[in-house]
């Protein structure tokens, strides 16, 4: 398989984009990525999105966005893996180039959540759970995370406050990201007083669903254009799955999918966790951030919150996470999130992260579907 490089990125501001439609957002991100790559034509488009059918009554996204972004009658398909849809689209784009099937490939993640009211959107998000055994029984995504978090707190014997560093770090970093939904820091005090969404998950333990689009241009080594910015190589791309329903998992407090996906990625890249310079993990819920750190080998089982409290997850720490705000502060435009994570690591590895710059040689992203039914890990290096 050939090496695959990212030669262009594009993002819209994530947030409540009342005036922008679904296709407006996608076209903006795609145009920005093509311009960044200095590329006018591509051979294929893969679109990551979870809920366009339910929220904007639009399916058939590959064809629609190929047309609307003016890139013509190319191969174009939509890829879905719940919250990991964006990363899943990258996986397909990666395989298309690596296999030799395609040369220049565009990957776009896009989601528009604000055309539907809050209750409808939250109900649609619950389709990331097991519809018959979880959602139909009344479980929502925050409620599922609440069950996991409560069990974790009970077994590991930590209080809620132990999770504060995840929101505080994310917001501190989001403050310097012009694409982030929230650009203001929050204090640990604010975390302690936060209202509950699904006890013990508070408003600061769950990332905001929002609008956004991000896009990447991929190509093999022999297609770098003269004026492309520093190409970033995809050193690893790995997908693993686990039982969708939390109660069906061997261990509800261990993200088996994240563990397997990360292990495969480390093997592909020939690295260990300590080689990773920054980790854009899936902090849709603070409990998932904790479990991701543990499953990917950055902390021992039950030590995830301790790692955070020691300051290891900050920009100066030994495993910076959410360096541009993470899902918590940058926002979670569901199907687009996986591409935002990649764009943020690319920004870091290009040395363009400004006040949030981390000195890193290797960047890792991991996108989870639902509560961990799917995990998609990528490792990038300049």
């Amino acid at each position, binding site marked *: 398989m050939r090496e695959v490089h990212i030669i262009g990125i594009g993002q819209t501001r994530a947030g409540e984009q*009342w*005036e922008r439609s679904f296709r407006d957002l996608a076209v903006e991100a795609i145009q920005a990525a093509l311009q960044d790559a200095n590329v006018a034509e591509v051979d294929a488009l893969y679109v990551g999105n979870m809920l366009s059918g339910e929220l904007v009554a639009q399916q058939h996204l590959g064809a629609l966005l190929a047309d609307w972004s003016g890139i013509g009658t190319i191969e174009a398909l939509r890829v879905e893996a719940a919250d990991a849809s964006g990363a899943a689209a990258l996986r397909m784009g990666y395989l298309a180039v690596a296999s030799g099937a395609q040369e220049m490939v565009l990957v776009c993640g896009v989601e528009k959540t604000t055309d539907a*009211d*809050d*209750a409808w959107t939250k109900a649609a998000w619950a389709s990331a759970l097991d519809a018959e055994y979880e959602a139909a029984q009344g479980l929502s995504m925050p409620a599922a995370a609440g069950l996991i978090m409560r069990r974790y707190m009970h077994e590991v014997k930590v209080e809620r406050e132990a999770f504060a560093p995840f929101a505080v770090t994310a917001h501190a970093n989001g403050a310097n990201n012009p694409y982030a939904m929230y650009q203001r820091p929050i204090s640990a005090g604010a975390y302690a007083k936060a209202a*509950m969404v699904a006890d013990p998950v508070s408003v600061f333990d769950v990332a905001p669903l929002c609008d956004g689009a991000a896009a990447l241009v991929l190509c093999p080594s022999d297609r770098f254009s003269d004026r492309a910015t520093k190409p970033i190589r995809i050193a690893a791309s790995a997908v693993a799955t686990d039982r969708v329903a939390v109660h069906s998992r061997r261990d509800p407090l261990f993200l088996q999918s994240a563990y397997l996906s990360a292990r495969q990625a480390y093997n592909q890249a020939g690295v260990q966790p300590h080689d990773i310079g920054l980790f854009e993990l899936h902090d849709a819920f603070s409990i998932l951030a904790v479990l991701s750190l543990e499953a990917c080998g950055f902390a021992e089982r039950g030590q995830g919150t301790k790692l955070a409290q020691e300051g290891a997850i900050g920009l100066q720490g030994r495993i910076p996470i959410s360096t541009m705000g993470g899902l918590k502060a940058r926002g979670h435009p569901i199907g687009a999130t996986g591409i935002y994570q990649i764009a943020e690591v690319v920004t870091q590895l290009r040395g363009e992260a400004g006040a949030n710059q981390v000195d890193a040689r290797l960047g890792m992203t991991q996108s989870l579907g639902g509560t961990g039914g799917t995990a998609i890990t990528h490792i990038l290096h300049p």
Partner: protein
Amino acid sequence: MPRYRLPASEVRRVWREGHGGLPVEEKSVPGLDEDTATMAIEAARNALARGQVSPTDLRAVWVGSESHPYAVKPTSTIVAEAIGATPEVSAADWEFACKAGTEALQAAFALVGSQMADYAMAIGMDTAQARPADALEYTAAAGGAAFIVGPLDQSLAYLEGSCSFATDTPDFFRRAYQHYPEHGGRFTGQPAYFKHITNAVRALLEELGHQPADFAAAVFHQPNAKFPQRAAKMLGFSPAQIETGLLSPVIGNTYAGSSMLGLTAVLDEAKPGDRVLLASFGSGAGSDAFSFVVTDRIQGRQRQAPTTQAYIARRKPIDYAIYARHRKKLLVR
């Protein structure tokens, strides 16, 4: 406003089992025999007492509401007849969600200013209905105010100018066959309330050449406590400037009466020379902004009728069951 009060904690107790924040402390609830018409008549009488005007001199009695008792049959004729203003009067009903009263007020200034009438009465009044378990049930309340517009040399305050800002923004609506309105959640915030109020007020300030500091008081539409506080901050008004006219924490959102009751509260305590800003917001969406200057004549008139605070103090707390009965939420047939 009516005397009954439903604590927001009651709504939370019934629907949220005690969890979650409260947007106001309590809201006003109409009694079994109260509706927009009966309340408008009472407000109209208070206005006539302060205005010292004969009802037969009124050339217009205009009532703005989103809870007119009839879908077809004017509220204004009931009010006009009850106060003795008929038959040589223009009676009309107005609607535009929560700014139904201020648009009637704006037009009343035009009627008098054009010398088509010496006196015109504009009323904003509502008995708002909220869907049980909806977020708006904490705040949908009842009440409103009446103003008589007349010649400058008899005025208690005069109008410096008025600006409106409206777009087709469906943030909150109800079809004729629906009992309860629908709303767009967070869409009612930045693209609706904040966009329209700030644009109307900025246009007014620019037109008149005023700064926020020129105003003794400012009154914004008050669907809850937070929105008017934030609008004030965005426009450069201080918490002290909005304090007197901020009633929603203790009476809820009186819809077409909301900003107008804030204005009566301010006028109850205003001093001659005070400049007062009024900015309403109606979903759908639009904002009417006004700048008034209080005259010497206000002294001696403020106590001619019950004050806004007197109405607020006249309260009888009820529980959710009595509220459900008063608002006819229980089907008995």
